[in-house]
């Protein structure tokens, strides 16, 4: 009896292999409906609210990493305890300064920025375009990246508030309260302050400021769009 041969000859009824993606983790199903959100904002916002509520409803006694949400190029994991991360300036690790044309070439579409005179330096790292400017005397970081071209993750502790919002008709999230950790692909994790994240078509936008309020962040986001500011 050649057991090795018999084993190799076995045809196993394996479970079907799911589709995996680093840009679209399975845990969060929202992004698959991103196009629909643009057309049906009210429905999407309701779904977003349900998803946020569901994410928080998972019992705390399960594994350390409990819940996931996804928005554009951002994955948000809800964890019991944040990993080690340092507080660093908003302008840290943004990459070299580039021209507007280079920034738009990296995004594959026009940049969305508030009307600022002069326009602050644009930075580019891993196809993420960032700029830092002052709002109400506080530094604010605006980052933009194309859908599917980039991945970064936020880890949110239990005392961080995550609420769904609408920005210019698109779905977004407002993260505030306790600090959360943010992971980019190639730089060390850092602690982040209050953050507004939203999608504009295939673009994900993110505004961060330590003392930024939700109203200020939404005003800033609206100011990015012509005729809204």
């Amino acid at each position, binding site marked *: 009896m050649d*057991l090795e041969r*018999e084993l*190799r000859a*076995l045809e196993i*009824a394996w479970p079907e292999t799911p589709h995996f993606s*680093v840009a679209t983790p399975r845990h969060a199903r929202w992004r698959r409906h991103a196009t629909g959100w643009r057309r049906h904002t009210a429905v999407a916002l309701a779904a977003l609210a349900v998803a946020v509520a569901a994410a928080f409803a998972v019992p705390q006694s399960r594994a*350390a990493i409990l819940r996931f949400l996804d928005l554009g190029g951002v994955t948000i994991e809800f964890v019991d305890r944040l990993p080690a991360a340092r507080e660093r300036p908003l302008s840290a690790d943004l990459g070299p300064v580039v021209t507007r044309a280079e920034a738009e070439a990296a995004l594959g579409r026009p940049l969305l920025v508030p009307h600022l005179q002069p326009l602050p330096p644009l930075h580019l790292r891993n196809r993420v375009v960032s700029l830092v400017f002052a709002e109400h005397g506080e530094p604010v970081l605006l980052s933009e990246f194309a859908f599917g071209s980039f991945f970064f*993750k936020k880890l949110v502790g239990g005392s961080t508030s995550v609420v769904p919002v609408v920005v210019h008709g698109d779905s977004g999230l407002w993260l505030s309260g306790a600090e959360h950790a943010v992971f980019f692909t190639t730089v060390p994790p850092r602690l982040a302050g209050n953050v507004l994240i939203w999608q504009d078509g295939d673009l994900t936008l993110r505004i961060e400021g330590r003392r930024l309020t939700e109203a200020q962040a939404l005003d800033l986001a609206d100011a990015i769009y012509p005729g809204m500011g």
Partner: protein
Amino acid sequence: MRRAQRGDSRAFEELVQPHQEIAFRVAYLITRNAADAEDAAQEALVKAWRALGRFRAGAPLRPWLLKIVANEARNRRRSAGRRERLALRAASPGEAAPSPEEAAVAADERARLLAALDELPDQARLVLACRHLLALSEEETAAALGVRRGTVKSRSARALERLREAYGSRA
């Protein structure tokens, strides 16, 4: 690879796409649960994506990837604290069976062999499953199990012996 290491997620997905099925199956063998295997493989791919900058240029991708997947699967299994049976099923032989009687005998033998395999201790079961059910190389099996190639050889020999005893006792 260069595009992926520069942060192009589509390039990374193209790189790992040919290995997704084997990665999922390795995770399934370890977690013994399709949902946990899916979570483990997904999370492992994200970790691999983050760690790609440290991947040694020119090294084979599959063993590196399988090692990350297997580690994640083991972590999931430990944290889940479950002891599920693997419950592998043999696929239907289709047109290959010469007669219904012979087909029934062959199916019974396959079921006995799989049951015997499933009853082996984890180490023995996994090394045989990796080498013979998934047809992984010794290097890939070593990466997935987190052991040296020599350990794969010795562990395989002992596992086959145990399987032979278990299978024989079921005859």
